[in-house]
């Protein structure tokens, strides 16, 4: 039977070493024609390295790659493209100010000096029609939603003749509905005989969309299984090597007083359009308020307004009864507002400074670190050691730049630093994005612990499962306002999904 299945791609004994680490240790991977094959693994399991080898970005130290039975040497993304491999990265590689057509033909050698826009537009429309979606070839990228941009990426790879498509966590930025549509497109492509490699953390998606699953752990192959013959729980065990808690223990605690109230807040985003549209929300002590919504509906701006990084045009924000509208980050810090930003290296941490220097960022003005105009780096070091031990952060070198830490450890450091401030209000923005299962569990448990201590937690996340797992109430944001607040224990995902897409508003 095995011989009947046509092998599109074989990667044999791929080994890739980086200084001090073996990212891929003799990994084997097979892809059949017309299959959706999921690559599953925690962060640092070697998925990205393996796919970068396939995309020609890294050259393996050992091992071979064959496409349709022929051995190939992939030395650059251009080589990979020539061998009909196309990768859709998590961060789209599109030029925002150019049109769909211009983005699609970008870097194509087959196009001469002059671009025949009409014929390209026809081809784009033909591709879109084949997979039952629409896209305006003349639209500029910045005018498109994230989901539409992703489709442009897909068209781009198909236009270049890709028969092996690699999608790196494609659903991370999509609503449930958009994800379903994407899966439709993928299934259609599969029936066309294309082969798809799908990278994801989300077990339910993996189960519903893929034919086979290959699991990696710590750079090694754990195994390849048929999706039909395995359960989510078994898969999770393969991935992390132990059972994980799918249900988190949560205590019933008394809801406290109002800690955060936002009233009729209005604020602009960076592009100068109204991002918060008379938004009101209240969070109590001992409560986790989940904020669900598709990216770009004002969640980031809401968090920035509360943390003093963005100005309100009108409206009020109070924390424990004190008016902190447009207060400085310093005032907010003394009011007990702490923040876990989505962009860890962009807002939360300073990538090129050391772990110690990052750990002290909120404490350096106080004793014992502050000695007049000077800083006692010895005390800072002791403080950092305390955090590292208490939160079990894996730090190879305390004085090395913090950017060399893994995503999970960076987040632990950030979380540790903010929680040590004894917050009254904790704002966590996508706190588990990009983290592996172990770190995710740690972060969620920490948030629940804070709630149990009476802290008000505002959890902004696109991951509905996460919100439903830890939040007490769920507020759904759409176009700069809260379209509905629901009890997290009495709601189904489909209903929230519809609210996120602006289809219904439900009042609490």
């Amino acid at each position: 039977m095995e011989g009947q299945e046509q092998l599109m791609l074989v990667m044999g004994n791929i080994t890739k070493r980086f200084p001090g680490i073996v990212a891929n240790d003799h990994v084997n991977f097979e892809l059949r024609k017309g299959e959706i094959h999921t690559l599953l693994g925690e962060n640092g399991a070697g998925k990205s390295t393996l796919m970068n080898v396939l995309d020609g970005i890294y050259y393996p130290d050992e091992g071979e790659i064959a496409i349709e039975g022929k051995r190939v040497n992939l030395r650059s993304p251009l080589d990979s493209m020539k061998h009909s491999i196309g990768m859709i990265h998590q961060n789209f590689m599109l030029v925002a100010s150019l049109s769909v057509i211009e983005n699609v033909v970008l870097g194509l050698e087959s196009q001469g000096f002059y671009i025949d826009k009409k014929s390209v537009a026809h081809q784009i429309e033909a591709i879109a029609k084949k997979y039952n979606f629409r896209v305006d070839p003349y639209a500029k990228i910045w005018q498109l939603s994230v989901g539409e941009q992703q489709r442009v990426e897909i068209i781009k790879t198909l236009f270049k003749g890709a028969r092996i498509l690699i999608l790196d966590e494609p659903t991370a930025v999509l609503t449930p509905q958009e994800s379903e549509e994407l899966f439709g497109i993928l299934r259609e492509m599969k029936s066309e005989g294309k082969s798809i490699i799908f990278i994801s953390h989300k077990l339910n998606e993996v189960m519903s969309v893929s034919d086979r699953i290959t699991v990696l752990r710590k750079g090694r192959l754990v195994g390849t299984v048929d999706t039909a013959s395995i359960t989510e729980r078994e898969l999770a065990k393969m991935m992390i090597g132990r059972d994980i808690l799918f249900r988190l223990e949560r205590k019933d605690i008394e809801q406290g007083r109002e800690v955060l109230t936002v009233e009729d807040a209005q604020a602009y985003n960076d592009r100068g359009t109204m991002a918060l549209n008379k938004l009101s929300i209240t969070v109590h002590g001992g409560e986790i308020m989940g904020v669900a919504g598709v990216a770009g509906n004002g969640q980031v701006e809401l968090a920035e307004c509360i943390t003093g990084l963005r100005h309100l045009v009108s409206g009020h924000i109070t924390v424990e009864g004190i008016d902190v509208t447009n207060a400085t980050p310093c005032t907010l810090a003394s009011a007990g507002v702490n923040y876990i930003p989505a962009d860890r290296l962009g807002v939360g941490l300073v990538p090129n400074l050391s772990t110690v220097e990052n750990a002290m960022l909120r404490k350096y003005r106080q004793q014992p670190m502050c000695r007049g105009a000077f800083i006692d780096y010895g005390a800072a070091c002791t403080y950092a050691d305390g955090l590292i031990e208490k939160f079990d952060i894996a730090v190879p070198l305390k004085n090395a730049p913090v950017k060399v830490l893994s995503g999970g450890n960076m987040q632990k450091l950030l979380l540790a630093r903010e929680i040590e401030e004894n917050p009254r209000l904790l704002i966590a923005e996508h706190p588990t994005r990009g983290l592996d299962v172990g770190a995710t569990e740690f972060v969620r448990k920490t948030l629940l612990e804070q709630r149990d201590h009476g802290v008000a937690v505002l959890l902004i996340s696109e991951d509905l499962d996460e919100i439903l797992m830890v939040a007490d109430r769920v507020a759904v944001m759409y176009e700069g306002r809260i379209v509905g607040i629901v009890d997290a224990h009495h709601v189904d995902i489909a209903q929230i999904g519809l609210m996120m897409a602006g289809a219904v508003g439900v009042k609490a």
Partner: protein
Amino acid sequence: MLRFEKRDKTPVRLRVLVPICSVLLGLLVGSIVMLFARVNPVRVYGAIVKGAFGSAYTFSETLVIAVPLILISAGLCLVYRMKFFNIGAKGQYIIGAICGSYLALFGPATMSRPLLLTLMMLLGTLGGALWAVIPALLKVYWNVNEVIATLLLNYIASYILWFFMYGTWRDPGSHGFPLSKNFALNAQLPRIIAAPSRLHIGLFFGVAAAVIVWIIIRKTRFGYEARVLGENERAARYAGINVVKTVIIGAVISGGLAGLAGIAHTSAVLRVLQLEINSDYGYTAIIAAWLAGLDPLVAIGVSVLLAALEAGGYQIQIVMRVPFGIVGVIESSILFCLLAGEIITHYRVTLTRRLSTPLALDERARGGA
């Protein structure tokens, strides 16, 4: 085929070896150019070394050039760390020289020497600081790019100097040359070695400035805030760091040191205000700061080396009748090689050939197909 891969960590061995090899390679490239100019590179390099370090006098002249470079680059090390790209040290140097010279030329003649000199140095520092605060304010309040603002202010400063030299400050006895009258002895910064050496006590200012800036960067709250700001402005704002204040203090320090360099050099070495007051040190110091990896103590050494090239350059011009441009060629080949060397310190470069591990892969692939 060459492959480049980013290194996680650069071994210390490379960090020392690569710059040394880069300098040697730069000298080699420079010699090739010299061969075209029909001069013997070995003799030219010999003359440069001799011209810069050959005797106590020549070395002290090298240090005369190094002093302003040390002062200016110390300040630049600080502001570049906060990503305030001040390339206006030239203008700050000129304004510092003008401000300090005002006291020298028009100050009360009866003032005691230490007091007059102290006031001159302070006024020069203040002038340079103010000249740097202008672009800092423009940046923090109106988001004006400081590279352009500081660069344009260099021209304005030059023309202000022209204005005084061709105008009211010109010495009537100068036969029409754009010179001020000579500074009185009271307004001359003391030299520290016997004539003809012009080495002056500005050297101590320079070393002290470098040490103080090093302490500021490494040990103080301000230095920490400056580094956080430079690496990640959003994180700095979230941590409650006052961005406006930090940038302005940085500009004051860096502009002030450039102004001090200007007045010290004018008062001790030139002893007269004129059109040519070596304000291009403001540009050379940028190179010194970057080559030193923005460490003011390392910048002392780099400044001395760059000064040696310059001092040696005068020497070959005089002794070997080689055009001074050759020095520029040598300097830029060294710089070019140093920058190219950065690739090796940041990336692992490997030569790859076909892979050697034979596998049973072909069979499987063929069997499948």
